[in-house]
């Protein structure tokens, strides 16, 4: 057991800290769920990329630094501790890129990744459909074979970032005759400004268009934008979903910084005894999440894969995040009702946590079945 970092890792951390100290904007950027904020965040991605900090764990040829998993964790700790902006490119970086590294062609990686790293192309995800929420296997949007590619038709929803993004990726039914519902799906990338695409922004609780509906009417996708075999989309997506719920979706650095922020707020409000336990739980929970992740990273470095234990992680951080922000609003009292504050923006964002990336109900079912070995229930 060892929590000390190697001199090389500490040097990496120090370099990141120094760069962030010199570059992080002194004023928060406008919300990335607005047109202005999206543009400002895209510019920030370019600034990160210019000095090689946007995708530190990628290979150098695509804009990264070949950083190790531990170095990535250290970068994230420094990134959020420095109060740096949210990452508008995260859907592409955390969901699509791992898929391309695992299942994409050399040509696809060379074409897609560099512009993703610089923020020139921002990606939206297009998983859900109106009738398929937790039940992804029941997708109905289809991809029909045509010369040199596929024609996409159907409807996607809850596509985060899609109101302002450039391209999207998702699953489409390419073989309607496949014997089981999760067979016969293709994993495709497409242009959100292609003919036949209509993007209808959806406002979240605070009115900001944090996601969109996509209406697709015979949208042409060339063969080069299919990832893997057309019928294997489900299997390919599941490996991405593992990533989504696993180590990369919410780095410990986020919550360490959030807990520090809460602790500062508590002190600024006069250190009220009545909320001391809840502030302590935020500090303790952030440390627990950090150490849990270090343990998972250690197992990963030992060659183990991240399996159903990512469900523990998902439930933990999503409920932790809401509890932390509820404590903040409670500390703010009547001021907590104001919507135009960072705390309010973060609170509203946190509320979605238990629903997306697999609802917490589904995650608890997975924990019961696969980690505790309980009999399959009818739910």
């Amino acid at each position, binding site marked *: 057991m060892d929590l000390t970092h190697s001199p090389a890792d500490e040097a990496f951390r120090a370099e990141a800290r120094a760069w962030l100290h010199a570059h992080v904007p002194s004023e928060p950027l406008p919300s990335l769920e607005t047109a202005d904020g999206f543009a400002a965040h895209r510019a920030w991605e370019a600034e990160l990329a210019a000095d090689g900090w946007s995708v530190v764990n990628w290979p150098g040829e695509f804009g990264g630094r070949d950083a190790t998993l531990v170095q990535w964790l250290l970068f994230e700790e420094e990134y959020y501790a420095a109060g740096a902006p949210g990452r508008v490119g995260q859907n592409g970086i955390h969901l699509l890129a791992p898929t391309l590294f695992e299942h994409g062609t050399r040509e696809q990686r060379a074409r897609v990744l560099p512009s993703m790293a610089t923020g020139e192309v921002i990606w939206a995800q297009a998983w859900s459909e109106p009738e398929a929420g937790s039940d992804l296997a029941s997708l109905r949007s289809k991809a029909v074979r045509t010369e040199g590619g596929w024609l996409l038709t159907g409807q996607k929803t809850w596509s985060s970032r899609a109101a302002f993004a450039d391209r999207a990726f998702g699953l489409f039914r390419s073989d309607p005759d496949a014997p089981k519902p999760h067979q016969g799906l293709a994993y495709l990338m497409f242009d959100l400004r292609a003919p036949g695409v209509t993007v209808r922004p959806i406002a979240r609780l605070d009115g900001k268009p944090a996601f969109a509906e996509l209406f697709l009417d015979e949208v042409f996708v060339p063969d080069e934008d299919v990832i893997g075999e057309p019928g294997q989309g489900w299997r390919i997506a599941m490996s991405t979903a593992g990533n989504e719920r696993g180590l990369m979706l919410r780095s410990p650095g986020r919550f360490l910084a959030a807990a520090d922020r809460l602790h500062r707020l508590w002190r600024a409000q006069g250190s009220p005894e009545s909320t001391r336990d809840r502030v302590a739980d935020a500090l303790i929970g952030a440390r627990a999440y950090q150490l849990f992740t270090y343990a998972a990273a250690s197992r990963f470095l030992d060659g183990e894969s991240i399996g159903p234990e990512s469900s523990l992680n998902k439930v933990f951080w999503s409920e932790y995040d809401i509890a932390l922000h509820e404590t903040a609003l*409670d500390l703010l009292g009547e001021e907590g009702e104001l919507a135009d504050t960072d705390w309010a923006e973060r609170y509203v964002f946190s509320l979605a946590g238990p629903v997306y990336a697999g609802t917490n109900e589904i995650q608890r079912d997975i924990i019961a079945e696969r980690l505790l070995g309980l009999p399959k229930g009818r739910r």
Partner: protein
Amino acid sequence: MRFLLDAEQRAFAASLDALLTAADTPAVVRDWSRGDHTSGRALWSRVAQAGVFALAVPETYDGGLGPRPVELAVAFVELGRHAVPGPLVETVTAAVILSGADPGTAKRLLPPLASGGTLATVGVGRSYALDGDAAGLRLACSSDGIRLSPGHGPVRPSLDPARRLTPLTPGGELLLAGPLTEQALAWARLATAAQALGVGLALLDRTVAHVKRRCQFGVPIGSFQAVRHRLADAKIALEFAHPLVFGAALTMRPAEVAAAKAAACEAAYSTARTALQLHGAIGYTAEYGLSLWLTKARALRTAWGDPHACRALVVSAAGDRRW
């Protein structure tokens, strides 16, 4: 001892429910959120005609029917259930404040509140007043007295888009010496508690309807035990907040009203969390109707004394006498 609404009170609730069901309240809320008060004022008039604000105006003044806190609570449960926007609680509070002013002032200012001709708001200390831009009467309360504020500052948004928060301009005519009375605060809290209870009931109803309809894995999600039990817990919280609200309306003791405010607001907020979780992503959108109640449940929690302040009053009053 007969701790049940009587037939007349039940009929009053039903008539308000019918009135508000017939009005297109979601559209009114959207207008109001944009600062367009036209449709809201029209609805306000109808609510006033039904006698709601008159319940807080003493019978001795033109148009007054009060004070009748039990009927007021009945009304505010319905206003909450239908997510009616506007400074409802504040108009009631202003009426109670003005009932304590000199008779000339009261006679001048109370009748338009009862009739619905004037919307009122109330600000305490440096906190924001609700809908100062819509109110024709703005009362600014501080430790030295209550003044008729001459105006309001820029609108700041609330997590509930239908609540527009405004600072009140200092100065103006002094109406009463001394701070906001315990009794006026009790009325504000009672109305807020009843409104929050109504919000919670609406959230529960809509979520029950949703889980019966929405299918996943081939069955309605309302057949999953985790869903069923979470809704059962929401039902329990609301059913035990309910008698606290009406008990408080009967006694109007400040600690009892504070208890009702804390319990109703906690029940409404936890029901909101349940409603959001069981609706999934659709519940998280501004355009789907659920957001009208979701965001209000959060905002009412801190309005007129957050749960912690209310609990402090309960504890400090305990032991003085039986409930």
